[in-house]
């Protein structure tokens, strides 16, 4: 039993954190809101250079050959800066799906992903809309009981504006020429895996977002003075932030366990992911609620950076399965006859 990350994993997290803190500033996120695509090719090339776009790509295809557990701490860091680029999607959803599909499709696209030369975007019915469909070189789409591959020429996109200006969402209409990648049970399994990995990515990002909102709020309430003191010295304000810290502290291990379960293809993976998604998004939603409160009217403005993180947290809570889906999955497991519950059952 060893529930710790390796030195290498923690060092990688540190270096990615430093890189993102320097490069993905609130100013840069805001600049992306004003651009046509909302995406930054220079930044994507930098991420590729660091090996991040190919982190989960097998070594034979030019990647680093790492797994979901290796990436989960980096996904937290992506959340911390509200990274607009589809890096978490690439590493946790698109690449694993392509690798499961295998064959020519994988051999053709994985090296390009690792090199930062192509983006592959996955759309599943559960998400209604497809984020970043407009920058995809290849789309892998759930279509009825099939999984199909399509290029930009083979689809029509309809943009839907999100409360989070970083999120570029599209309804995707399939035209002629798309090819079927899998069908029936095989397609169903691939889509289910994509849902789990997407939910894992959302949960990990939610942890980072929650931490960012706490940090911003602690800083603000330490500086803002009323009644002759920093407002952060008042217990009413302290307790708002302490309540977030409690929920956040206990959401981390479930996310790490979910990453482990997915990486090791454990039977408990779906349940572990649902658990992680629920508690991490709940922590992020509480962070948003209490952070805007301690910011007072400033928190309600466009100018203060808090909303960059708050809005992404709100959006992530309902993508890759909303609370209804994940609670239903948990209920299905724990209310089943003969379910293994209680002390000693957690690790199977």
């Amino acid at each position, binding site marked *: *039993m*060893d*529930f*710790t*990350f*390796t030195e290498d994993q923690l060092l990688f997290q540190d270096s990615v954190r430093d890189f993102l803190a320097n490069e993905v500033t609130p100013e840069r996120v805001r600049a992306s809101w004003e651009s046509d695509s909302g995406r930054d090719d220079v930044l994507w090339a930098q991420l590729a250079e660091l090996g991040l776009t190919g982190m989960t790509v097998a070594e034979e295809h030019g990647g680093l050959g790492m797994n979901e*557990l290796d990436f989960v701490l980096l996904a937290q860091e992506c959340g911390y800066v509200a990274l607009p680029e589809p890096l978490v999607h690439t590493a946790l959803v698109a690449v694993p799906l392509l690798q499961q599909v295998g064959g020519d499709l994988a051999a053709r696209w994985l090296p390009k992903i690792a090199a930062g030369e192509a983006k592959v975007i996955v759309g599943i019915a559960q998400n209604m809309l497809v984020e970043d469909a407009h920058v995809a070189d290849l789309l892998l789409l759930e279509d009825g009981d099939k999984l199909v591959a399509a290029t930009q020429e083979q689809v029509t996109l309809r943009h839907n504006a999100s409360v989070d200006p970083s999120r570029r969402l599209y309804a995707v209409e399939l035209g002629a020429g798309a090819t079927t990648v899998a069908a029936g049970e095989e397609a169903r399994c691939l889509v289910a895996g994509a849902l789990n990995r997407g939910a894992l990515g959302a949960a990990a990002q939610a942890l980072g977002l929650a931490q960012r909102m*706490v940090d911003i709020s*602690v800083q603000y*309430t*330490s500086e803002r003075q009323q009644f002759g*003191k*920093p407002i*952060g*010295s008042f*217990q009413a*304000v*302290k*307790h708002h*932030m*302490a*309540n977030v*810290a*409690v929920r956040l*502290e*206990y*959401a*981390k*291990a*479930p996310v*790490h*366990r979910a990453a*482990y*379960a997915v990486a090791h293809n454990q039977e408990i993976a779906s349940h572990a992911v649902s*658990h992680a998604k*629920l*508690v991490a998004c709940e922590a992020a939603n509480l962070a948003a609620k209490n952070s805007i409160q301690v910011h007072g009217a400033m928190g309600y403005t466009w100018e203060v950076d808090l909303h960059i993180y708050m809005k992404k947290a709100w959006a992530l809570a309902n993508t890759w399965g909303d609370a209804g889906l994940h*609670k239903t999955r*948990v*209920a299905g497991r*724990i*209310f089943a006859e003969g*379910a293994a*519950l*209680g*002390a*000693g*059952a*957690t*690790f199977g």
Partner: protein
Amino acid sequence: MDLAYTDQQKAFREEIRAWLAANVPAEPLQTFDTEEGFKQHRAWEAKLNEGRWGMVTWPEELGGRGCDLIEWLVFEEEYYKARAPLRVNQNGIFLLGPTLMEYGTDEQKARILPKMATGEEVWAQGWSEPNAGSDMAAIRSTARLEGDKYIINGQKTWSTRAVWADWCFGMFRTDPDSERHRGLTFILVPLDSPGITVRPIPQLDGLPGFAEIFFDNVEVAVQNRLGDEGAGWSVAMATAGFERGLMLRSPARFQETAKRLVQLYVENRESADRDPSVRDAVIRSYLDAESYCLTTYQTACRLNKGGKIGAESSTNKIFWSELDQNMHGTAMSILGARAELLPHAPDAVGVGTWLDGWLFAQSGPIYAGTNEVQRNIIAERMLGMPR
């Protein structure tokens, strides 16, 4: 990361499981908040110690097994699954014991720990005073050094287990000119000393689980001082740290409650679902108990590898005490009109121990430092907010 038990951990689990299966009393003991129940629990501690299961984390030469924290968690899982008796000497073995090992002299360890291990000497806490609750640094009870004795005067209150315990530990003001947390000394006091009066305080369930202790010129040998004179605060903080931490409230206890809550819900689903919030509360309770377990394992693994426990451990107490309240409150909702019935009431069918648990859950956010104090600690020491 490797989330599987080693063969050694699995064998340890089998060993404790077999011993408990053979030794846990078939009939639950009476509560240790009665005189008879206290005796029964004291005898159970002796039996546990005979099997060397009393304090598995203690070193072998003190009757323990030198277990690490993962083995401790495994032990607790089996212990709660077996519904073995609650630990009457928890103040001693979980709180004072580890503090003694860190701060005690060899003479103190040799004299005190073996009798603590067998349950021959059961320990009560003596922290709070009428005017020193959350503000523990306001302690006014005094200890005056005269020759090789301390002369103790004053009053302690909310002393858990004090009615039938043999000893108490606590802080006393040894420097009369001192203020706040300076000038306090940690002293161990035999409760049969002349000049001590113990007045039981009935708890919510009517039973005397705690008491007031009055000290009237009580003489205590200087050998019963733990740590240096005037250093009581730092010794006490170590005890409070253990209390909040892994030992006193391991996840197994709450996971077993969560499991019983799921079972209660499933058995009463039709009536329970008339209130749609109940299903959600059951799901949340279950997940929170699992989160508590996962987080505790992660912390334990980090500590096993030489990591240090930080200010984030202050989140622990709030998490489990609120979880415990939520679980029992949800069970009360499911039981509906039966929930208020005492277990021996003739029509109290299928009510289990939920009412007792509900009453006890009310104390969780209060004892061991109120949750409001914990929130201040989290905000100031973990988050770095201004004082």
